C-alpha cells in the first residue's frame, strides 16, 4: 500500500495523548517547535483511566514542580477539582503534599481545550504503528493508515497500550484500556531497532453507582476549606466541593477472597508480569496480611454530574461474580451496583536504562520516551517525564544543552535518575523516601527551586518575573529575620499583595519560617548536595572503554557496561557498586581526561 507522506516536517512528534503526551506536546509547542500530537482517539485525551485524582505524597510535590516549569497539569486539576486535601498535616512541612480529586470529564475537556488552543501544535487521530527510520537515522512515524509523518524528534508516550492485555478473572482479552484497542505495532518496531522490552502489570478497581451506596453507614471525609491549590497560579474558586466516604472490608470479605483465590489470574499464575507492591490488589492484602481484620476503602465521586464512584482500595482481578459478592460483603455497599468491573492490565515497557538523562534513547538519537513506557506508574510521574521529554526534544532541535534536574533540585530529578541509573522491576512510583534531600524538595518551595529554570527556558511567561523576584526577596527577608515583628507588623497597614500576585506575603512568611525551622538540617542537606554536585561534573566520556578499567569487581563491571553511567555520581548510585570500584573508575576517567600539560605544571609545583 502506498504511503501518504504528510506535507509538513515537524520538529517534535508526540505519540500518545495521555498525561505524558499532553505535557510533552504543550512544552514543545510552547518553546516554538512545530509539534504534532498523534493519538488513537482524541476523545480520550488526558483520560484518568484509574483514580481521578492528582497529587498525593511525593506526587503532590511533583505536580507543583511541573507547574513551576510551565506544565498544565496542576492548573487543569485545580480547574476541575471536586475535592481537595493537604496530606500529612500531622507531620513536618517537608512532607506535606496536596491532593486534588477531579471531575474526570472536566479534566479531560480542559486539557483537550488547552491543546487545541496552543499555537504550533497540530493534533491528529491515528495509531502510530512503526518508528520510521532510514539507515540508523530517525525519520518520524508511520501510522496504521500508512501516513508517514516526518519529524526531527519523536516522543513515545504509549501508556499501557503496548501489547496491552486485560484480565478479569481467568478471562483475558487484548486492550490498552477497557474497551480501547491496544497498540500492537510499536513493540516489534522497537525490538527491531534493538530495544529491550519488559512487561509490567497494573490494575484499576471497580466503579459503583452512587445511588446504590448507603452513605449513612460510611464515615464522611470532608474536603479542606479552603482547598489547597496545586498550581502556583490558581486563585480561589468558589465552587462547592464534594465529600469522600470511608468504609472497610470485613472478615466476610476476606473469606470470599480466600475461597476464590484459584480464580485470580495473579494467584493462578496467568499474570506473570510484576505489579506494584505499593498498590496491591485486595487479594494481595488479604493473603500477605492475614492478621489484618479489615482494610480501608475510600468511596470517591468521579464527577459533579455523574453518580459514578471510584472504590479506592478495591483493586482486584477476580472474576466479576466474585467482585460482586465481595462488594456486597462491605458495610454500606450491601446493595451497591457494580457498573464497571475491576481489571488488571499487562503491557510492554522499554527498559529505562536504555535512555540518557534527557530521556533520549541511546540507541536512536532523536527518539524520546516518557511515562509508563519507561516503567513508571501515575499521572504525575508520567506528566513530569512528558514535560522533560518535550523540553529536551525542543532543546535538541534548537541545538541547546539538555535540561537535566539534579536529585537535590526536584523529585523529577530523583525519578529520572532512578529510572536511568537503576531501572525498574515493578511499576515505579515516587516516594519521599526516595529523595535523599527530602527537606530541600518541598511543595512550598517548588517555585523557588524551579521557576528560575521556567523563566530561563521561556516556559513561564515573562510577565510574572518581577512579582516572582519580589516573592523571592520576601521569603529571604522573612527567613533571615530573627523574631517575627510582633506588634509593629500588625499596626502597619497591610500592604496589598497585588505587587507580587499570584504570590502573597503570607506565603512568603510561611516558606521563610519553614526554611528557618529546618535550619541546620537544610544546611547539612545543601552541603552534601554540593559535594555530590562536584561528582555530577566528573563526566564519563561516552566513548570511554569501561571494560578497560582494571580491577573492577565483576558485578560492578557488568552494571557499568549495562547502564553506562555518564557521571561519577551516577556510577556511585548504581546498586552493588563498591567504594573501590568508584575510585578505580575515577582514576581511570581522570587519567583519560587530564591534558598532558597539566602534569608538567604539577611537576614543577612539586619540585
Amino acid at each position, binding site marked *: 500500500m502506498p504511503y501518504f507522506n504528510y506535507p509538513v516536517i515537524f520538529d517534535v512528534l508526540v505519540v500518545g495523548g495521555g498525561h505524558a503526551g499532553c505535557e510533552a506536546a504543550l512544552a514543545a509547542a510552547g518553546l516554538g517547535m512545530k509539534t504534532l500530537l498523534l493519538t488513537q482517539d482524541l476523545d480520550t485525551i488526558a483520560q484518568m483511566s484509574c483514580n481521578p485524582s492528582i497529587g498525593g505524597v511525593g506526587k503532590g510535590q511533583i505536580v507543583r514542580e511541573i507547574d513551576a516549569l510551565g506544565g498544565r497539569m496542576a492548573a487543569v486539576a485545580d480547574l476541575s477539582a471536586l475535592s481537595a486535601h493537604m496530606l500529612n498535616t500531622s507531620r513536618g512541612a517537608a512532607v506535606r503534599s496536596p491532593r486534588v480529586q477531579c471531575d474526570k470529564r472536566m479534566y479531560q475537556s480542559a486539557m483537550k481545550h488547552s491543546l487545541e488552543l496552543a499555537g504550533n501544535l497540530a493534533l491528529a487521530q491515528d495509531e502510530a504503528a512503526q518508528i520510521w527510520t532510514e539507515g540508523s537515522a530517525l525519520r518520524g512515524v508511520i501510522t496504521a493508515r500508512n501516513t508517514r509523518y516526518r519529524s526531527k524528534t519523536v516522543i513515545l508516550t504509549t501508556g499501557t497500550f503496548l501489547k496491552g492485555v486485560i484480565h478479569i478473572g481467568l478471562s483475558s482479552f487484548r486492550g490498552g484500556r477497557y474497551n480501547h484497542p491496544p497498540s500492537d505495532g510499536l513493540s516489534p518496531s522497537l525490538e527491531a531497532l534493538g530495544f529491550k522490552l519488559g512487561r509490567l502489570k497494573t490494575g484499576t478497581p471497580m466503579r459503583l453507582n452512587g445511588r446504590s451506596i448507603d452513605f449513612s453507614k460510611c464515615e464522611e471525609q470532608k474536603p479542606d476549606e479552603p482547598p489547597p491549590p496545586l498550581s502556583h497560579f490558581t486563585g480561589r474558586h468558589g465552587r462547592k466541593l464534594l465529600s469522600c466516604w470511608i468504609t472497610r472490608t470485613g472478615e466476610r470479605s476476606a473469606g470470599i477472597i480466600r475461597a476464590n483465590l484459584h480464580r485470580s489470574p495473579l494467584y493462578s499464575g496467568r499474570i506473570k508480569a510484576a505489579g506494584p507492591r505499593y498498590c496491591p490488589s485486595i487479594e494481595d492484602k488479604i493473603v500477605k496480611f492475614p492478621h489484618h481484620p479489615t482494610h480501608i476503602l475510600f468511596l470517591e465521586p468521579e464527577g459533579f454530574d455523574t453518580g459514578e464512584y471510584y472504590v479506592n482500595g478495591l483493586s482486584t482481578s477476580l472474576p466479576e461474580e466474585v467482585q460482586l459478592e465481595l462488594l456486597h460483603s462491605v458495610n454500606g455497599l450491601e446493595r451497591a451496583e457494580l457498573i464497571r468491573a475491576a481489571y488488571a492490565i499487562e503491557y510492554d515497557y522499554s527498559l529505562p536504562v536504555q535512555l540518557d538523562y534527557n530521556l533520549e534513547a541511546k540507541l536512536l538519537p532523536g527518539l524520546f520516551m516518557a511515562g509508563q513506557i519507561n516503567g513508571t506508574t501515575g499521572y504525575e510521574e508520567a506528566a513530569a517525564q512528558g514535560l522533560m521529554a518535550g523540553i529536551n526534544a525542543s532543546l535538541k532541535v534548537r541545538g541547546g544543552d539538555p535540561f537535566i534536574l539534579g536529585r537535590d533540585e526536584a523529585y523529577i530529578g530523583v525519578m529520572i535518575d532512578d529510572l536511568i541509573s537503576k531501572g525498574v522491576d515493578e511499576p515505579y512510583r515516587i516516594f519521599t*523516601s526516595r529523595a535523599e534531600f527530602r527537606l530541600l524538595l518541598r511543595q512550598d518551595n517548588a517555585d523557588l527551586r524551579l521557576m528560575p529554570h521556567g523563566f530561563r527556558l521561556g516556559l513561564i511567561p515573562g510577565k510574572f518575573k518581577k512579582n516572582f523576584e519580589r516573592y523571592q526577596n520576601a521569603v529571604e527577608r522573612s527567613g533571615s529575620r530573627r523574631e517575627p515583628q510582633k506588634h509593629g507588623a500588625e499596626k502597619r497597614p497591610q500592604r496589598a499583595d497585588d505587587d507580587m500576585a499570584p504570590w502573597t506575603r503570607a506565603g512568603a512568611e510561611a516558606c521563610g519560617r519553614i526554611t528557618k525551622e529546618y535550619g541546620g538540617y537544610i544546611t547539612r542537606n545543601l552541603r552534601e548536595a554540593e559535594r555530590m554536585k562536584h561528582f555530577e561534573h566528573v563526566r564519563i566520556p561516552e566513548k570511554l572503554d569501561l571494560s578497560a578499567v582494571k580491577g573492577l569487581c565483576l558485578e560492578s563491571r557488568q552494571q557499568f557496561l549495562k547502564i553506562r553511567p555518564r557521571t561519577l555520581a551516577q556510577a556511585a548510585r548504581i546498586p552493588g557498586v563498591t567504594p573501590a570500584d568508584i575510585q578505580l573508575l575515577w582514576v581511570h576517567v581522570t587519567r583519560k581526561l587530564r591534558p598532558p600539560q597539566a602534569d608538567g605544571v604539577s611537576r614543577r609545583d612539586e619540585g
Partner: protein
Amino acid sequence: MLIPDLTQTIVAPASAQGGGAIAVVRLSGPEAFKIASAFLKPSSIFKTPKTRFSYFLRAEENGRLLDNTVVTLYRAPKSYTGDDMAEISCHGSPFIISRLLRLAISNGAREARPGEFTLRAFMNGKLDLAQAEAVNDLIISENESAHRAAITQVAGGISNRIGKLRAGLIALLGELEVRLDDSYEELPELDPGTFRRRAAAAAAGIKNLADSFGRGRYLKHGIRVTIAGAPNSGKSSLLNRITETRRAIVSPRAGTTRDTLEETLTLSGLKVIFTDTAGIDPRTGGPIEREGMRRALKALKTADVILWVQDLSKKSSPADRRVGKAIARGAAPGSDLIKVFNKSDLPAAGRPEDETDGGIIVSCKTGAGISGLKRRLVRDEKKAFSAGSAAVITSARHYSALLNAHSELSSLERLRIRAGTFPFELAAEHLRGALNALADILGETTPEEVLANIFANFCVGK
C-alpha cells in the same frame, strides 16, 4: 558515602603490615595538624609547624604516654598527597598503631580507604601520567588485602554484627518512612516511647560494638592481668601455679603479700603480664598493709583483665563483697573481669550456682582448672589477632563508622520525640545519617531496601 570525601582528613598506617621495629602512621588533610595536636605533645609545635621538619613528640592517650614518636610535618602543597600531612613514626606494635589510629579518628579523622593517599596525590596533580598507572594497581591490591581481612572469621563476624545493627536501623527507618509516604494513614500511630526505646537500644548496640575495639589487643605490649581478691584467697598461689614458679611467697596466713609483684609469661604467643596484689580488705592492717592495698587498687586501674580470686571452700564473705566493690569502682572501663574460684580440692561450701556461674573453678594445690584459665585469658586476643595486623585496620574503619553512626543516633535521641511533637522527617534524617556512616563498611543503604522492608512489613497502598 561511596565516593570518598577528599576534603576530610584521613589516617592509615603507611608502613608494611605484619610488624617491623618501626611503623609509620600517616595523617593527611586540611585538619591534619589540628588533629595531630590533640594527642601529640607538646602540641605547641603545631602552632607554627615547619614543613618537612621532624619533631620528637610524645603520643599521649588520656594523659598517659602511649609511645615516643618522631613526627614529620609537611605543609600543603609540598607533601605526597598535596594536603597538610603528618607522618608519625612509632614503634611497630599493632597495639600502638591501633591506638594511634583510634586517637586520630576520635579527634575527627577518618580511616583512609585503600589507596586513598595516592588517590589524593593523583587528584591534587602530584603524580604524572606514568606514575598514575600505578594508582589503580595500588587500589586493587590494597582493596584485595582489605577484602581478605574482611572475609576472615573475626572481621566477618564483626561485619555480621554490624549487618544486624544496620537491619535494625532500616526497620526503624521503615517505621518512619511508611508513615510519611502512606497517605492513607491507616497505620496505627507510632508510639513515641517505643520508638525512643528502640532507637536507644540501637544506639547502645552500636556503642557496645565500638567500645569492644577500644580494648585494643596487644601483641607486643602484652595483656595486663591483675590478680585480686580477699586476703588468703590464694592469689599468690595462683600466680605461682600459672607461671609454674615459686616466685611469690605463700603461707597459710592472711596478708602474706604486702607489695604488688609482676611476672611475665607467654601464652599462645601473646605476652601476658601478671600482677599479684595484696589482699584487699580496708579494715585490716597497719601502714604497710594499707600501702600494699593502695598499690593493689592502682593495679586494678591499669589492668586489661582482672582475676578475682575467691575461696570456694568458704561461703561468700563480707571481705569478698568489699573486693567486688573495689573492682567495680577501680577497674578501667572495658576491662575484662574473670571470677576464679580457688581451692576446689577442699570440700565445697555450697555457694549458690549463680554465684559461680561464668567463673572458672581451679585448685592451685592440684593444678585442676589452670589450663582452662590460661586458655580463657587469651581467648579474645587470639581471636582478634588471628587475622593478623590487617584486622587492626579493618577494625579501625569499623570503629570510625560506628562512632559516626552513634553520634547520629545521639542527635536523634535529643529530638523531642513525644506524642504531638514527633518530628518524623528529622528522626529519619538521623537514621539515614547513621546508615550512611555504616555504608563505609557494608555499602550504601538504598531507598529500595527501605521500601522493601516497608512492603514486607506493612499493608500499604490503596
